[in-house]
């Protein structure tokens, strides 16, 4: 993983990973890794501050839930309506950006 590349898209990745279903930190790390075939390997030191930032921005909402296996509760994050809007906006922006880059470097679709 290239840290710089991840930086610019971290919020979009996190918002997108919460689009369909609420998830907790460990699941988000696993999901992002699986969905990108290991290209992005999120670390906790990056993930939790980013989640807290998104929560402060009002885009996600965290709630403690006890898992079926018991033990300490985990904090499960849900995308808020404002988060859905933000995801849409960031997704559009990313698509315009990557389209523009493809226009210059050629190849691909």
């Amino acid at each position: 993983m290239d840290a710089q590349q991840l930086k610019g898209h971290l919020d979009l990745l996190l918002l997108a990973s919460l689009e369909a279903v609420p998830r907790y930190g460990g699941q988000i790390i696993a999901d992002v890794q699986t969905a990108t075939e290991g290209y992005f390997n999120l670390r906790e030191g990056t993930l939790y501050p980013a989640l807290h930032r998104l929560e402060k921005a009002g885009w996600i909402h965290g709630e403690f839930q006890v898992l079926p296996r018991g033990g300490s509760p985990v904090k499960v994050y849900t995308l808020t309506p404002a988060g859905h809007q933000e995801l849409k906006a960031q997704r559009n922006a990313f698509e315009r950006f990557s389209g523009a880059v493809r226009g210059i470097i050629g190849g691909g679709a």
Partner: protein
Amino acid sequence: MNETERYLRRATRGLSGQARRDAQQELRGAIEDKVWRFTLLGMGQGEATQAALRDLGSPYAIASGLTRVHTLPRAALAALLATTAILLGVQALAQVPTVRAMPDPEYQSCVYDEAALQRASVEDAARWRLQLSRPGGRARLEAACRATTPSLGNTLLRLSDLTSALTRAGVRVRTPGRRLEGFLYLTFPGSSAEQTLDLSEYMREIAGESYVQTWSLINHLRRTPGVPVRLIGQVNPVLQLGETKIQLGTSAAPILATNLYAGALSDLLNLQPLTDAGTPLRTEWGFDVPGQAGSQIGVDAPDGTLFVVISNVAFTGPKLKAGAAYTFRIRIAEGGRITTPFTVKSLVDSTSGLVQTTARRQPTLLVYRLDTSDLRTLKLVPVPSSSLRLNP
């Protein structure tokens, strides 16, 4: 304390109160989740815990990220230091007991010692090591760092100094002993009530001495009932608690009052945000980057009057950043004007004006006077725009 709890404490250093408890709970859940997964792979409990903590990485990396989100501002203090230095009014304080200060090594930027390299990400540490190995590399690296990220200043107070300064100033101080270090039970002169001051959450052990954070002290005192809290002076201010006076900072390791006010204001705005038509506005303490010079504002106020300047710069750039917030700076009037690091074409005098101008993506500033007569009731006093002049 077991290994997990020790990790949790380290990973949430710099946070306080509910934010800290929540972050610890969240990380505890995350650690247990990992431990559970590892035990499914056949590891024993102890081995799985070790592996989970290793997998989570440096607790200091997590703490530094979380602290940045929850408490610390984005950029820096050097320009503020520069502008306040000219106002340095040294006070006659011989009789006032003094509390020594030092920078927090966990936040101190631009020092590339082994501890800092250990705290950094693997990529950063590798890059720094390469630069440090070159002739003159350290000086270049430090200079480049200082140009963009000035230090936070001296943010730690020596606890033993604080205890003895309070005692010498006439306060009866009871400490519950080592196990509850950071707790002070105070009885102020002329009062029979004992107040509890819990400074344990920001405790740091450095070279065998315990230190507490300046903001933690001020913000806990603000919540202590019965005792008015004031700061007198701009550099190494005298902290006045009722009739009790102690001085914070020394000329060798100075403390700026503006820095303490900003921490208190941050705390206030977190609890009671500014609002526009009932909608809370997100504000953050913004730090100056050296060399930035922007608009000046003419004010009808004597030298030394404190103002709060709220900027919408985070919303007016070409790209809206995630989690953008209005940022505030504290400024001191001098010669009928305050300086700002922002270039604006207009000023507003209300939050609705700020929000409307922001909607048009025009940079603007909202100016308040800061009433610091009692930090418990720190107040933002609106300033009519008719009494402000842009670039006088």
